[in-house]
């Protein structure tokens, strides 16, 4: 059973601009732009100004339209001076996406081979409304939201990234889970032709990359299915065309290039748990008190940093989202359920 309690970061009905006002404002903005007035008033104008140096992508038309219709700055950090958005080049040039190699620069170098259009997603398992969906149809019913989240990697570095996407909860509601559904299991594409890391015979990962969430975690309003970032579509190396973003968990939970979402009864075994269960658990909640066996999780290096200021900051419980998510874990021993 799901009991929904509003969290501070929840969006309320009252936050949403009525469509008539929204549309008239857009017309107004259009008129202003026509007059050449450069007043950055609306969220979109502000966002666009922030992304003026972000290279334009090559998104299909439907995605461009979705993005132009985004609710900009739907969730932003409470302290924007502390949580400054990382430069696009860093967020798109420094990635862990082992399907394309193990070096942080490998995904940016090699992910160009990934074909993201057309793309389809299978929704199956304990649902009444499953099937295979073209990504466009999959995304269509929900409005895009821009959410600026901290991303904390299990390797003790972090970045602040503005995502564009839809709440996973809406997708799951549409799938109409049966009463047996307790967990959500995600799968990344397997295609060694396109993903050179999957061709390596020395890889420790047993492809496909698998991740999982408890159903309440998946339904949590902070959990996002991202299709874009920095006001554009996702670069391939960031998990195009569809990735998960779970901001209170270590980055490896935020699975990339998703092809399958299954509602299941049993707790899925995620890839890292399979590789080293003593180092990576199912929950993987950001927790400064539980170290990775090989390094401390008490602090993180906020990137980009520089040589003599590693920008080491204290890691916060649940990556600073404790107010929103902590109650989901009430009574759970987070030391054993790491």
């Amino acid at each position, binding site marked *: 059973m799901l009991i929904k309690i509003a969290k501070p970061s929840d969006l309320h009905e009252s936050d949403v601009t009525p469509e008539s006002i929204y549309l008239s404002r857009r017309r107004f903005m259009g008129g202003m732009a026509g007059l050449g007035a450069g007043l950055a008033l609306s969220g979109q104008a502000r966002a666009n100004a922030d992304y003026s140096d972000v290279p334009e992508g090559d998104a299909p038309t439907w995605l461009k339209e979705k993005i132009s219709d985004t609710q900009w700055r739907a969730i932003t950090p409470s302290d924007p001076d502390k949580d400054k958005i*990382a*430069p696009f080049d*860093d967020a798109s*040039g*420094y990635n862990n996406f*082992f399907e394309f*190699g*193990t070096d*942080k*620069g490998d995904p940016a170098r090699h992910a160009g081979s990934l074909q993201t259009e057309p793309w389809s997603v299978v929704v199956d398992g304990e649902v009444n409304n499953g099937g295979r969906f073209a990504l466009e149809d999959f995304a269509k019913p929900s409005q895009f939201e821009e959410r600026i989240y901290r991303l904390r990697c299990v*390797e003790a*570095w972090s*970045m602040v990234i503005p995502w564009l996407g839809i709440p996973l909860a809406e997708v799951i509601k549409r799938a109409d889970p049966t009463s047996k559904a307790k967990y959500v299991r995600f799968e990344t594409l397997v295609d060694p032709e396109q993903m050179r*890391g999957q061709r*390596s*015979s*020395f*890889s*420790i*990962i047993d492809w496909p990359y698998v991740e999982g969430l408890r159903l309440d975690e998946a339904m949590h309003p902070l959990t996002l299915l991202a299709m874009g970032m920095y006001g554009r579509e996702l670069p391939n190396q960031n998990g195009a065309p569809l990735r998960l973003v779970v901001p209170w968990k270590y980055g490896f939970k935020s699975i990339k290039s998703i092809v399958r979402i299954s509602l299941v009864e049993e707790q899925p075994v995620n890839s890292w748990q399979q*590789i080293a269960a003593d180092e990576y658990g199912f929950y993987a909640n950001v927790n400064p008190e539980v*170290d990775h066996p*090989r*390094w*401390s999780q*008490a*602090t993180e*290096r906020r*990137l*980009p*940093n*520089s*040589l*003599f*200021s*590693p920008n*080491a900051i204290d890691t916060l419980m649940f990556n600073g989202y404790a107010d929103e998510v902590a109650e989901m874990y009430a009574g759970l021993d987070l030391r054993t359920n790491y």
Partner: protein
Amino acid sequence: MAAQRVWLLWRVGVFLAALVPLVFWGWQVANNAAGPEPGRYLLLNIGIGALWMLLLTLSLTPLTKLTRWKGFALIRRQLGLWALAYATLHMLSYALFILGLNWALLGSELVKRPYIIVGILALIGLAVLGATSNRWAMKRLGKRWKPLHKLSYAILGLVLLHFFWVVRADMQEWAMYAAIAALIMATRLPPIARTLPKLRHRLSRT
């Protein structure tokens, strides 16, 4: 006299070549071309550089046996000291750029993390070999010098273990270095070591 000058040039050339990677990485960092985490960039590159220096140092003896070229033996001490220098810089990069000179954290990490303990042991080993690589120490140690410096193989093993423990997802790079290390170590096994000069004769005849 001329020959001596050539050898000097050779040694200076090797010295400069060993300096090139450090200059290149430093230049990349200075030009903001080392990514969002330049400290980690230096840490990892210098670490791999230290392993290269160690492998190169240990390959000189088999290469000398194979070719009888005097030049290899002439740079052995130098490359060994370069391995020590790179390893020291690797350690300093960790303390400076990753831990930000947080001494308390450094202390707790040192005792808690097996891969760091193994790395430190390797560094201490290299330092001992470096300190005893001069003529005076060689004379003092006499017969014991050689067995002491065979420790370099044990150090190579520690370095590979240290590297093995930081690998997260793909063993390919590690396996490559481990294979090279195994090859070098194999050339020191008596049966193989004996065949190297024979191999040289065969090669020189063709």
